[in-house]
Structures are given as C-alpha cells and as structure tokens.
C-alpha cells in the first residue's frame, strides 16, 4: 500500500514537473516510471490524477501565502457567514466533499483567491462592495469553480517545471528534509507567480459560467455575479482594483461571454433570492475594529 502510494506520488511528480532529462540525472531509477507514466497517459491527463490529499496540502501552503499578505478579518460573525454560504454553494458543485474553507482577508483591495483542495479567500474590499448576498454567492461560486476544475494545477505546472523533482514525493509523504523543502519553496514561488499573473483567461470565463449555475442551484440569483462584474467595470484605473484587473479578462468581456452563454436560459429558474435580511444586517453592522484604528493584538502572535 505504501509502496503503491509512493509509486503514485512519483508518477504524479513526473507528470507535474515534466522534466525527464534532469530527473534521470538526479534519480537514475525513475526513468522507467516516467516512461510508464508517459505511455499510460498524456501529461495533461496525469495532472488530473493528483489526489485530493496532495491538492489539500498544496492548497494550504498557497493559502498561507495570501494570508501572509493579508490576515483574516477579525470578525467571527462575518467569517462564519461566508463559511456557511460558501459550503452551501460548494455542496452544489461537483466536489461537495472537499474540506472547504472560506475566509475574508483584511485588505481594502478588491479581489478573491482560491487554492487547490477547497480554499477560498475574499478580500474585505470585495466583501464591502457586495450589493446583495447573491453577488457574494456569485464571487464565491466563481472561486469554487476554479477549485472544482483544478485550474490552479494547470497554472502551477509551468512554473514548477524548473523545480526539484524528487521533492514532491517527500513533500507529500510528509518526510520533510531537503527535497520536500525544495519542492515547497518551488511551490510557494510558483504560487506567488500564479497570484500575481492570474490563471488562464479562458479558465476565468469558464469559472464565470460554472459559477452562475452553482449559485442558481443553491437558490441564489445567477445574476449576482453580473452585478459584481458591473462594479468591476466601473473601476478600470482604480488602484484598489489593480491586481484584480491585471489577473482577469476585462469585466466587459466577461459580461459579454456570460451573456452569450446565459442568454435567457436561466430566466426559468425563479426559485432564487437576490438578497437575505441576514446579509443586509451583517453588512451594515458596525465593524468590530474600525478601519484606521489601531488593530487589536493578533491572537496567537507573540509580541517582541
């Protein structure tokens, strides 16, 4: 069983890193595995074979990067709210059983991120601009779609090509040590590049299209996401939207693609809400720590 798992990890590593030459030089006995992997499946297919535990582990490391730039908003009510809504939406996706985790991170900038394995982070700037709960549902469902479709693995692949091959096995096996550390460093750097450059543009359009369906399945107006895209369309040069704009297709193009895909197809889905009183109350509640005020000491953080 362990041997099988190791073999599988090695195959995944080969597929992920796609560096047969260097691999053979570094690990002479691994060449056969690579050939095997290549013979059985094409590279793209093999990537889909990354197991859930591997995805979750990678997702955790990548989530830590975003959390390293902006910590979680210290507002338990809001965090619980997005977790309940987010999981409810994810239950209507094709991967309902991932250990989904949602969080609002403390920055004025408008953005949302997701990581392999079920991590979704939305910025406070984005959260604060939601007109209705169906808009929030639209954003979360878009991010959920990236996770479901494994778009991150696709984006990470290129960057990881240059990193140490054997490390993936140690990284996944929890062995720690030099190779695992090398892979983790490579993964974190690749993740940073991914969050700075964005995912494949087509993956964004696809996630929009899947997201509106997930929202509608969960009882929300599928047009919530359209409202968000309109908000984005108003701010082409706004600094708070800079990274979001750089990493996504133009909001107007996204609206256009959604119009082509949606047309009036979802008009028959009338059992949906645009907003909930609970969200109105939550959004308008005074913030626990007003912006500009000195932040409360962070939990679990040593001082000096």
């Amino acid at each position, binding site marked *: 069983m362990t041997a099988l798992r190791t073999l599988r990890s090695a195959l995944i590593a080969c597929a992920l890193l796609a560096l047969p030459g260097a691999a053979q030089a570094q690990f002479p006995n691994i060449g056969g595995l690579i050939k095997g992997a290549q013979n059985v499946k094409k590279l793209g297919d093999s990537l889909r074979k990354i197991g859930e535990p591997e995805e979750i582990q990678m997702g955790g490391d990548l*989530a*830590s990067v*975003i*959390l*390293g730039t*902006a910590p979680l908003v210290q507002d*338990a009510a809001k965090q*619980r709210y997005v977790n309940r809504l987010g*999981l*409810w939406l994810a*239950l209507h996706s094709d991967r309902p059983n991932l*250990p989904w985790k949602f969080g609002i991170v*403390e*920055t*004025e900038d*408008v953005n949302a991120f997701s990581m392999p394995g079920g991590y979704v982070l939305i910025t406070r700037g984005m959260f604060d*601009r939601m007109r209705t709960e169906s808009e929030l549902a639209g954003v979360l469902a878009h991010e959920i779609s990236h996770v479901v479709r494994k778009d991150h693995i696709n984006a990470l692949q290129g960057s990881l090509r240059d990193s140490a091959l054997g490390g993936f096995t140690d990284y996944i096996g929890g062995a720690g040590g030099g190779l695992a550390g090398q892979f983790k460093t490579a993964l974190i750097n690749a993740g*940073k590049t991914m*969050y*700075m450059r964005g995912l494949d543009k087509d993956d964004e359009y696809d996630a929009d*299209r*899947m997201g509106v*369906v997930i929202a*509608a*399945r*969960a009882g929300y107006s*599928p*047009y919530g996401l*359209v409202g968000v895209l*309109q908000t984005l*369309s*108003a*701010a082409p*040069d*706004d600094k*708070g939207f800079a990274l979001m704009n750089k990493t996504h297709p133009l909001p*107007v193009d996204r609206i*256009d*693609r*959604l119009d082509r*895909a949606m*047309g*009036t197809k*979802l*008009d028959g*889905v009338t*059992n949906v*809400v*645009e907003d909930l009183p609970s969200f*109105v109350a939550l*959004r*308008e509640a005074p913030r626990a720590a007003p*912006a*500009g005020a*000195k*932040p409360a000491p962070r939990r679990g*953080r*040593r*001082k*000096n």
Partner: protein
Amino acid sequence: MRRIVAILLAAILLCRVTSAEAAEKGLVLRAGDLLAQPFIDAARSGPLTANQPVTILQRRGAWANVEAGGKTGWVRVLNLRLEPGPAGAARPGGARPSGGNPMSLLQTGSSGRTVTTGVKGMNEEDIQNATPDYAELELLGTLAVSADDARATATKANLKENTVDYLDKGRSRK
C-alpha cells in the same frame, strides 16, 4: 421594543440601499430595446444605442430598471456596464474607503515586517514579498463549518435548491 427598533433600523438600511443604488450610472453595451416590463416579449418603450448612458434605478434578477433618454424601462443586466468612475461610488450604503490613512503602518516587534492595519492594499509586490503565515492558516481551519450547519442555515433562510444544467459557451456574436 428591541424588535421594533431592529425592524425600523432594517427599514432605514434598506432605504439607504435603494437610494444609493439609484445613483448608479450605467452604459448600454449593445444596441437594443428599452422594454416596458421585465419580460423578453414586453412592449418596447424606446430604442437603446450602444454606449448610451442610463441611470440604474433598480435591479431585479436578469433585469434592471433604468432611466434612459428621459424614458424609464427595463433592460437586461447583461447589457449594462457601469460608467467608469470612482469605484467606491457605486457601493450601496453610502461612502466607501477614503476613511483611514493609507500610510498608517505598523512594525511588528518580532519580525520587523510591516503588517496591515486594515487600510493596506494587496499588490504584486506584497504577494512577491509574502511570508507564508501558517498561524493564520490554522485559524482559517477553525472557521470552517460542517455540511449540516450549512444545510441548516440554508433551510432556515428558506433557500430553494434548483436543478440547473451547466452552460455551454454559446454562440459567438462575430
């Protein structure tokens, strides 16, 4: 008593939302018709031209009630963008950011790293220089809820589940 206050407060807040939404300025994406009602086969109230400015009065699902060229009617939300302008202006519930000093930063004693005070942005450089924060990751894990919790909350909110097929890309207009 407390309940009445809460209801009044909610009513006031809802009014604020409505009035703030009324301030949204939009642009028509594609030429088409302004309709008398939010239905595809509704009577035509007038023509709409591409890039025509409109004032968005109300959103209702696929439709927006707009004022265009002195006429009021309905248009698909997918045929609207917002007029470029201050991003925060459109937000419901009134004024946005501006509060807080963007320069207010705090040095942590432990790492010497500059951390946010809640008014910081998140740009490429911030991500490039990020140190993974595993304490926050652990905290994130504690925030997760169970599927039963999520289902119970949705049931309480009276959310209805729908059967909806995934969409294909649709036809290109070109």
